[in-house]
């Protein structure tokens, strides 16, 4: 029999690097993207960007994006750091015991006179000015958001442990527990946090608790799946060695699987924590507490300078956390 291993190498059939099927798929996908770009404003975005670039280099004297950018910059700056409150609105105000760095000012109150069509001074009003008052308020709200993210992450870890155990082939009791755990992971992942948060706000009212629950329920789907996948892919050798001794499944998981997968688990938890910090900042929009609630309030009042302060604090916090997280991850993986 003339098998391929016996025939001359010069006669062996070599495949082309690109098949006509691949080219056809490429053309179909390109056509689909072209149609979709028109439907989803991607084409318009491309046009606006080119127009803005032309404006930037002086090829044109008007650009829609440039007008928007100028409007934003005029209203968003300078950042608001201080807070000014009328002393008449402060309960138990003691002028002899002012908060640190704060001072009092007398300013006339302006009221709009409809008859004259102008602002008029009515009376002198005393104000307490705290130079870093608003920044402090935003930082406290950010801390509340961080705490919300931390508790949400802890809750998701706790919920994901049984999901991971039963969702890992080789450890799950039977196919029913395996399928149920995997399905529950998919279900939790498929529910957006904002929708879950609205549901929990209806159940528990406004505050950080609905936010924590929303983050916990949504992210346990991710962690459950990630953990289960890693458990399944862990090296079988050490597991077999412990199975040979007669150790039960839980002991095998604890001593042969978790030491292998722990660096990856820590990386996942760090990622989820970072992600939860980002998500927690917007959960307040639906009433789930934290800095998001403050952000929504300021957006509704069109206080763009306040919004800029909030966004800057969010950006610095998220960026710093990612840097810390990156260093910790490297330490764990190396260690």
């Amino acid at each position, binding site marked *: 029999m003339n098998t391929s291993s016996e025939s001359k190498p010069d006669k062996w059939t070599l495949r082309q690097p690109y098949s006509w099927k691949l080219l056809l798929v490429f053309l179909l996908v390109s056509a689909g993207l072209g149609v979709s770009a028109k439907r989803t404003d991607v084409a318009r975005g491309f046009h606006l960007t080119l127009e803005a670039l032309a404006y930037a280099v002086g090829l044109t004297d008007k650009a829609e994006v440039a007008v928007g950018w100028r409007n934003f910059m005029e209203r968003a700056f300078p950042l608001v750091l201080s807070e000014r409150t009328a002393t008449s609105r402060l309960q138990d105000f003691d002028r002899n015991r002012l908060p640190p760095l704060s001072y009092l000012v007398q300013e006339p109150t302006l009221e709009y006179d409809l008859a004259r069509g102008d602002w008029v001074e009515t009376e002198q009003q005393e104000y307490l000015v705290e130079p870093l008052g608003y920044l402090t308020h935003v930082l406290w709200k950010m801390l509340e958001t961080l705490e919300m993210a931390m508790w949400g992450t802890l809750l998701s870890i706790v919920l994901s442990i049984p999901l991971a155990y039963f969702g890992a082939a080789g450890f799950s009791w039977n196919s029913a527990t395996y399928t149920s755990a995997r399905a529950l992971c998919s279900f939790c992942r498929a529910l957006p946090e904002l929708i879950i948060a609205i549901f929990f706000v209806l159940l528990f009212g406004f505050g950080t608790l609905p936010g924590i629950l929303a983050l916990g329920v949504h992210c346990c789907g991710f962690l459950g799946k990630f953990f289960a996948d890693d458990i399944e892919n862990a090296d079988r*050798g*050490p597991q*077999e*060695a*412990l*199975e*040979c*001794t*007669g*150790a*039960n499944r*839980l*002991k095998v998981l*604890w*001593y*042969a699987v978790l*030491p*292998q997968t*722990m660096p990856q688990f820590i990386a996942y938890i760090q990622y989820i924590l970072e992600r939860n910090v980002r998500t927690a900042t917007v959960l307040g929009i639906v009433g789930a507490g934290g800095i998001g609630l403050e952000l929504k309030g300021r957006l509704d009042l069109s206080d763009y300078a306040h919004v800029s302060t909030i966004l800057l604090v969010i950006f610095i916090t998220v960026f710093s956390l990612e840097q810390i997280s990156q260093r910790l991850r490297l330490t764990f993986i190396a260690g």
Partner: protein
Amino acid sequence: MILRFNEVSKRFQDGSVALERVSLEIPRGQFCVILGPSGAGKSTLLRLVNGLVLPTEGVVEFDGICVRPHTMGRIRPRIGMVHQQFHLVPRLSVLKNVLTGTLPILSTLRALLGLFPMQAQRRACRLLAEVGLGEEHLYRRASQLSGGEQQRVAIARAFMLEPQLVLADEPVASLDPQTSRTVLKLLRSASAQHGATVLCSLHQTDLALEFAERVIGIQQGRVIFDAKPDELDASMLESIYLTRESEARQT
């Protein structure tokens, strides 16, 4: 007899036959080496003893107990196993790796909390000393050890529960000749000291001749030689390692 194979056959789902009607009896305290080419069924023979593989036909008896899924709990703690790739947990310390040998007799709560009895820790230290590892190795990660050192740790782990039988599946296949000899010496002395029977699969015929009290030759799932090592001559070795390809080429 510590171990008895009675007309044992093993066929896998893909139709391949690993063992065909194998009958063997291994007496207590014997250092028995199994020789055979890759795919001959050596590993399957060993894995049938502690139930990692179940026979398609026939019966495997360990110390009078039939190896079945429901008897594993009684059998496995009395059998130690040494693997070709050591199968240590790389991120655990040497001491923890050895102590995992006691997991079947430790309560689940104590195991999860890592509370190994002091007696077990002392035994682990003694066994490590026996295989030539010092105090400085105790808290080093298994991944930081050389291949030979890792296999020493694996031997110490296998002897943690005073096993009556030690299965060694090509324990020196990934080691250099000098380390291979040292590891087999350790295995022999440890088994002699603790009164354990050893069933060891090997590829190195010179080591088999040097260490074995009995050599079993397997070819295509069948036992074709079972005698003392001095009865193993060149022609028999050739027939043990005669593969299908070389057989076809000869014909």
